[in-house]
């Protein structure tokens, strides 16, 4: 959906550029613009407000939150929650909170290892698979298996959690990072293949033919020409996978139990569950803000590629 909207706006802009500029229809033009900006502002507010509220809360004490009438901006901003987070011994709060905060560093590392691991695995396998699916669509086997892959996206993850648990118990993968990486890849790999397939289809076949005539084997043409050309698509797909893996909660909750593999979402939820006190919530908010930073920074750095990668994919996918 999002891609369609972007494309429509682009064509609307073109349309506007073609309008005769001699007749100054300032009123109409201004009206349209105002409506557009209002819509954009509304959408931005809709998406951003919860996050901004979280940021505000992370700088609040519990008193600021429960006070009546409610205070929307705690002035002055309080750093106490972040202090508790990074220097648990210095902060206020009971043993359970300190224990929970103590899990944060390992959870952060676990999340990073799992998310990066899943991203790399999906990109390596996914782009090669996507190449095969993009270039051999005339074969029934390829069409059928691709349909199968996409079908897996239609199955609710919930229904898979028990089978996963039983299998993992038997295989000794419970509470391991490897287990999480495998589980996440199983449902993020089809997504990667789908995004990359659309991207590769947009690359003219003559490019790899030229490479093969120039002296590449098929694999060399894939690695030396096709994949480098696919970099924007790979970055877009990689970030999607990273964010999905970083944010995943349900499987992580079921398949992990200790600091060995628990990820950020699980540990953050633990603040609410294990400490059991509403007064600990602000620490949870601060933790959530910290936890949302890596995907945020990643998206900001690579946003150019995200749009570019998905648009090319969208036009052909």
């Amino acid at each position: 959906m999002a891609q369609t909207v972007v494309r429509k706006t682009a064509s609307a802009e073109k349309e506007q550029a073609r309008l005769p500029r001699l007749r100054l229809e300032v009123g109409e033009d201004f009206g349209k613009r105002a409506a557009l900006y209002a819509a954009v502002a509304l959408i931005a507010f809709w998406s951003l407000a919860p996050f901004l509220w979280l940021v505000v809360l992370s700088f609040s004490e519990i008193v600021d939150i429960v006070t009546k009438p409610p205070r929307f901006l705690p002035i002055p901003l309080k750093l106490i929650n972040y202090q508790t987070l990074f220097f648990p011994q210095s902060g206020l709060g009971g043993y359970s909170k300190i224990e929970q905060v103590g899990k944060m560093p390992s959870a952060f590392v676990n999340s990073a290892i799992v998310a990066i691991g899943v991203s790399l695995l999906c990109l390596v396998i996914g782009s090669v698979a996507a190449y095969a699916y993009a270039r051999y669509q005339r074969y029934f086997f390829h069409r059928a298996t691709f349909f199968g892959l996409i079908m897996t996206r239609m199955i609710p993850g919930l229904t898979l959690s028990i089978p996963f648990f039983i299998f993992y118990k038997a295989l000794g993968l419970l509470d391991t990072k490897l287990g999480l990486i495998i589980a996440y890849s199983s449902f993020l790999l089809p997504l990667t293949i789908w995004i990359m397939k659309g991207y590769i289809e947009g690359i003219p076949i003559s490019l790899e033919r030229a490479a093969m005539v120039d002296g590449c084997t098929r694999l060399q043409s894939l690695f030396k020409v096709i994949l480098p050309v696919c970099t924007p698509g790979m970055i877009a797909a990689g970030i999607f996978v990273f964010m999905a893996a970083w944010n995943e909660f349900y499987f992580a909750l079921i398949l992990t139990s200790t600091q060995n593999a628990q990820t950020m979402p699980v540990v953050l939820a633990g603040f609410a569950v294990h400490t059991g006190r509403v007064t600990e919530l602000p620490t949870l908010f601060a933790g959530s803000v910290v936890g949302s930073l890596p995907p945020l920074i990643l998206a900001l750095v690579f946003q150019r590629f995200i749009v570019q990668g998905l648009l090319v994919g969208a036009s052909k996918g």
Partner: protein
Amino acid sequence: MAKIVLRDLCKFFGDVRAVDHLNLEIKEGEFVTLLGPSGCGKSTTLNCIAGLERPTSGEILFDDRVVNRLSPKDRDIAMVFQDYALYPHMSVYDNMAFSLQLKRMPKAEIDRRVHEAARKLSIDAMLNRKPMQLSGGQRQRVALGRALVRQPVAFLFDEPLSNLDAALRIQTRTEIKALQQELGITTIYVTHDQEEAMVLSDRIAIMKDGTLQQYDTPEETYSKPANSYVAGFIGMPRMNFLSGRASVQENQVVFDAESTTIIWPISILSDQQREAFGEGHEVLLGVRPEDIQVSRETENADVVADVFIVEPVGATTYLELRADGSNLKVSSDPSQRFRSGERVGLRFAPEKLHWFDRATGARI
């Protein structure tokens, strides 16, 4: 340089016969064009020669060596594609050097070859740019350069000029011919443009529905087309066709169309033609626009026609005529200044008539 031979080459895609028992011999250093409309199998043939498609049956020989199972990289050929197929992530220099780097050629030699080719194509100022920063014509040159540095056994061109504008196309065409003459490398060139084929080639292979129609020099395909299909394809404007019945009567050849009868002395026919016509034969009479003399004199004319449309192109003026229910195109001297609506008389140059069997289209 290599001699390339196609022996009974077939390529089927499911039920579609893209190339059907094609036999072709391309001499060392020869410039051969595969000519035909889209879907005639010319590009598939080229891809088979390049090794990008595997033939269903038949053999491809480079210098008497069967190369059917060789991968493209082992055939030592260079190919220029319609969309240029430049590697967008590499600079112009790297695009040209890529094949040499894969061969692990010494850096100094790569450098020398790339610069030499770039100078030849006047792209030496652009070696550090990316393909995106170049115009269509410049990209075309880089694609040529990429082929040149290879010094391959053969050049394969797949409609390399169709994405250029008309003026640039003609200019590049001349340059390609000059380069090929200078280097003397065997070249196979695919196009649907008959003029391009005529200008460039030593020999033209005209294809239709995967089969070879005629394989001959441009002059021969023009003056002695093997069938009515070739006759209609080669030459611009197109050859005129009149269908009727030809017969030999008392030392004369009589051509009967619907309401027109044209009589020539029998001497214009070869023995073979005389024998074929005999009592009467359903034929297509082909005559090129430039082989028809048009005048205001209608008395002794072969055909009388009405001028319908006048198309001056400078050196000549083409007239679209209507005679006997069919349309004819003729070229006339601009100084004659024909106007539309005028009645004119046509005389066909008897020694330049083309006779084809109406049923098979074959030349008689």
